[in-house]
């Protein structure tokens, strides 16, 4: 059967190539449907409970998508003529931001004052031309005493201020909308930087985050893929030493990638921060297949085979291993479907499909290509020279087995013990490398205004106009004060402050009346009057719902880990429920969404890991045709991930979404080493050799190949470390560590283990 197929491929290489071309063109046609999505929502399924809560809140109140422009003058003082003028100018210009519905700054803060029987409502700074020392002092006094401004839009020392632009994206072409909006803000700050060279500007907020998600993904695509390509070509040149066969490999890689991307496009999958690296990963995995095939062909040619029989030799030797290793890798990636994060599932499916395509192409198109191309033996160094290195290694392991076994076992246990140093942490802001503009802006603003994290609470009174009830306002006030007292909270924006201020204004600005109005009618009527005095865009719709039955309260949080965030959410909701059982409270925010998804994703990935292990081990049992060998393989398959995560615990200790999938995907990749090693070992044992001779045989026959593929894979995944997006760079680094560890275990521990425990003189055929 295999002979028949191979014979046909070699007899009709042009038909195979033509067929490949047609198939590839068909599959690649979907590439036009691919598009980038740089939006934090790609991390969540449509039925994610935190996303639903978040969307519900956005529907009930106005949206809270925003751009925050941080303004830090070199002289460290916002309150002077130059800088206040600047704030006013940017505020006015910010209204031109595409899709903006609201702009908040210290200049357009609606300052309320009593003037006899008038209620005066006006911008805190209306006309910069009128600024004099008295007016500046006045503005400074009001702004720094205003609870809704201080620590939110201006620092308590008046050194840094911020302008918040709320946008409502139509969400027809979200990526374009995000780029338009962010692009406008960037142009604005660039222009003002030129006019005010001593002032530094920072762009933060949800839009800046979404922009960074998209920007970094495209940046990865633009930089990582070419880098990877160069690395691949260099590696091929080094390993194969033939331009022609390197070309053949490049063709297989390109075809694999375009077909995979085309199929993804046709399936409606989009490119995101996660899936944009599928080409890089596929290049790595596909190259391994090709190198195996070509190296064997070259080996056979150098032994004097003609090309046809050399290809046949290679196919016979590699067909099964390539299929098994591709299948295990695909299974590892397919387990990502159990992830809570849709783009990780996309990454898994795309890579799995790509790996199987690469497998198919390297046993059909690749031999056909080799058949029509002028392939030479290649200037591979004489085989025996390589063998002596592996032979020395084999001798070393055999000699030192008594030491290696306990030493390696101890190392494995110690490193695995460090796993406990890891904890799940998903903070969207920290997904970006500290050097990125977005992270710089967020870190700066976080330091001064606690701008990077917030939590919205919706408090439901249970009835229409309930927010006007003094009891309810008191509850809101109590809760916001409790929040403000928490060490994690930097600022609370609450409607109760508005009521207190209005009550004071209505009583001739008497500070004694800076308290909640006494009756519902008073509160309602003050609010009505206030609302009628506000300008376009600065209404209370972002704090009050339609029938005034509920209010939204925003707590700005100091930077904290995802565990602390979910803990804080629980604590706050418990406090409110305990104090005010008659009212309902709920919480939502992007930070909360990421905190929850991180934990849930980790839990589901840990649950699927045993499934992947069982599936892959069954495949090994099948391919090695031995339960015993399958069982032995478990140890070198599990240990690398355990050690890798232990090393990670020492190195970083933070497990994010990207790392939660590393155990599954690396498992699928590292079993290859074990399979090859055990297969050769088993082969030798079946021939009646003892364990020692079998280990030596295994080292000699596959040692070099394992070394080479590991090098290719480690270098390939290391390229991901160049990503400034930590989900990718961390994933690349840890996967590379685990793959390297796997080789060390297969070379130093597995043989020692076999020598110790597989001591029966000869085995019967299974």
């Amino acid at each position, binding site marked *: 059967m295999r002979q028949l197929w191979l014979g046909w491929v070699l007899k009709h290489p042009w038909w195979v190539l033509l067929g490949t071309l047609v198939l590839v063109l068909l599959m690649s046609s979907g590439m036009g449907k691919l598009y980038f999505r740089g939006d934090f929502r790609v991390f969540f399924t449509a039925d994610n409970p935190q996303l639903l809560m978040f969307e519900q809140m956005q*529907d*009930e109140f*106005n*949206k809270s998508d925003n751009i925050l422009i941080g303004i830090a003058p070199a002289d460290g003082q916002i309150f002077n003529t130059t800088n206040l003028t600047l704030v006013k100018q940017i505020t006015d210009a910010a*209204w*031109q*931001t*595409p*899709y*903006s*519905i609201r702009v908040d700054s210290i200049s357009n803060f609606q300052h309320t004052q009593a*003037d006899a*029987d*008038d*209620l*005066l*409502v*006006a911008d805190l700074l209306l006309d910069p031309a009128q600024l004099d020392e008295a007016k500046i002092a006045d503005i400074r006094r009001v702004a720094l005493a205003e609870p809704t401004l201080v620590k939110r839009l201006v620092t308590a020392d008046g050194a840094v201020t911020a302008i918040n632009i709320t946008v*409502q994206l*139509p969400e027809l072409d979200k990526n374009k909308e995000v780029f338009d909006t962010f692009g406008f803000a960037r142009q604005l700050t660039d222009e003002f930087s030129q006019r005010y060279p001593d002032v530094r500007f920072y762009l933060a907020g949800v839009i800046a985050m979404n922009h960074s998600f998209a920007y970094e993904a495209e940046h990865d695509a633009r930089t990582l893929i070419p880098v990877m390509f160069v690395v691949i070509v260099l590696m091929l040149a080094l390993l194969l030493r033939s331009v022609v066969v390197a070309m053949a490999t490049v063709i297989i890689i390109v075809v694999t990638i375009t077909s995979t991307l085309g199929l993804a496009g046709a399936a409606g999958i989009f490119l995101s921060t996660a899936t944009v690296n599928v080409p890089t990963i596929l290049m790595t995995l596909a190259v391994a297949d090709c190198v195996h095939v070509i190296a064997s062909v070259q080996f056979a040619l150098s032994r004097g085979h003609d090309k046809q029989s050399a290809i046949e030799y290679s196919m016979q030797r590699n067909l099964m291993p390539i299929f098994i290793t591709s299948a295990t890798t695909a299974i590892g990636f397919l387990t990502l479907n159990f992830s809570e994060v849709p783009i990780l599932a996309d990454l898994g499916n795309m890579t799995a499909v790509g790996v199987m395509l690469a497998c198919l192409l390297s046993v059909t198109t690749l031999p056909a290509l080799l058949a029509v191309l002028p392939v030479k033996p290649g200037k591979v160094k004489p085989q025996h020279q390589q063998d002596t290195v592996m032979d020395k290694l084999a001798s070393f392991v055999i000699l030192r087995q008594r030491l290696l076994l306990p030493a390696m076992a101890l190392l494995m246990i110690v490193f695995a013990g460090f796993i406990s140093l890891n904890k799940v942490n998903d903070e969207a802001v920290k997904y970006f490398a500290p050097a990125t503009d977005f992270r710089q802006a967020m870190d700066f603003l976080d330091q001064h205004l606690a701008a990077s994290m917030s939590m919205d609470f919706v408090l439901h009174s249970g009835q*229409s*106009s309930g927010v*006007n009830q003094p009891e309810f306002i008191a509850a809101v006030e109590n809760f916001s004060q409790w929040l403000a007292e928490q060490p994690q909270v930097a600022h609370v924006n609450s409607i109760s402050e508005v009521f207190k201020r209005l009550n004071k204004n*209505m009583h001739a600005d008497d500070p004694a009346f800076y308290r909640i109005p006494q*009756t*519902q*009618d*008073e*509160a*309602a*009527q*003050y609010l*009505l*009057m206030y*609302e*009628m*005095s*506000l*300008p*376009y*865009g*600065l*209404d*209370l*719709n972002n704090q*009050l*719902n*339609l*029938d*005034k039955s509920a209010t939204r309260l925003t707590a700005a949080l100091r930077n904290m880990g995802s565990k602390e965030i979910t803990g804080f959410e629980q604590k706050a909701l418990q406090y409110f429920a305990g104090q005010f059982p008659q009212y309902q409270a709920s919480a939502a925010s992007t930070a909360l969404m990421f905190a929850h998804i991180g934990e849930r994703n980790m839990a589901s990935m840990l649950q699927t890991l045993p499934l992947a292990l069982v599936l892959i081990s069954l495949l090994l049992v099948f391919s090695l045709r031995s339960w015993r060998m399958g069982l032995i393989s478990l140890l070198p398959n599990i240990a690398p991930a355990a050690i890798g995560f232990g090393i990670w615990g020492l190195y970083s200790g933070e497990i994010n979404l990207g790392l939660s999938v590393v155990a599954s995907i690396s498992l699928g990749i590292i079993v290859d080493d074990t399979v090859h090693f055990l297969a050769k070992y088993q082969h030798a044992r079946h021939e009646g050799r003892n364990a020692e001779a079998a280990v030596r045989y295994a080292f000699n026959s596959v040692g070099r190949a394992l070394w080479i593929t590991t090098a290719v894979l480690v270098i390939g995944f290391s390229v991901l470390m160049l990503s400034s997006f930590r989900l990718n760079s961390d994933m690349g680094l840890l996967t590379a560590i685990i793959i390297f560890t796997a080789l060390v275990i297969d070379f130093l521990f597995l043989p020692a283990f076999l020598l110790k425990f597989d001591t029966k003189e000869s085995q019967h055929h299974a």
Partner: protein
Amino acid sequence: MRNILLTPLLILGLTGAVWITGFAVADETKGLAIAQERKARDAGWGDSESRTTMVLRNAKGDESQREIRTAALEVQGDGDKGLTIFDEPRDVRGTAFLNHSHPTAEDDQWLYLPAVKRVKRIASRNKSGPFMGSEFAYEDLSSFEIEKYRFSYLRDESCNDQLCFVLEQVPADEFSGYSKTVVWVDQQHYRLHKAEYYDRKNTLLKTLTLHDYQLYLDKYWRPHKLSMVNHQTGKSTDLLIHQISFNTGRTTADFDTNALQRVR
């Protein structure tokens, strides 16, 4: 040689320029004329009273209602006067809003708050915020005065089975929430059928459509349903006008601040 080539081009350019400016002037003249006719057709109604339900909807489709009564007095030579009494929600019942609009000066606005039995003047230049949390701003509801806008005629277009003038109105007040409004006025009765409001970044913000016009006193057309849809937030508000009566006998005295406190 150069002249031979340039001259016709120059003439062509000049003619074009004259034609374009002439066109623009004509547009503004025609726009103003239509607006004046619209104002003139509605002159002389005297005074009126009506009862209105406001239905507010958010993007999800949740609804909330407000009940108000309004009285209006036509003032010759100045803007009209209006009085709005809030009936629902209950906690603002009896609150009364008095406004004296002026063609060029800022409108005067007062609010009577029954909870504290006081009349407060709203000293704000802002007329663009939401009226009772609805999608209508005060400036959408205040009386139509020629001096508040600069008009230009855009085109003829059919609307609601009739032919309409389409005008652009640019507000004179720098504190307006809008950069411009495009209105559809029918050519037979000069009634407003539709208005599109553009925000300060010149993006379409809201669309108002007016329905169920009825004729009063054989001369004055009044709509009985006004629907305002906010395209940016997906929220909307309907004004349902239940009763309109004219010649109610109200006088200027009913529209001053002293009268506010007596309002029921």
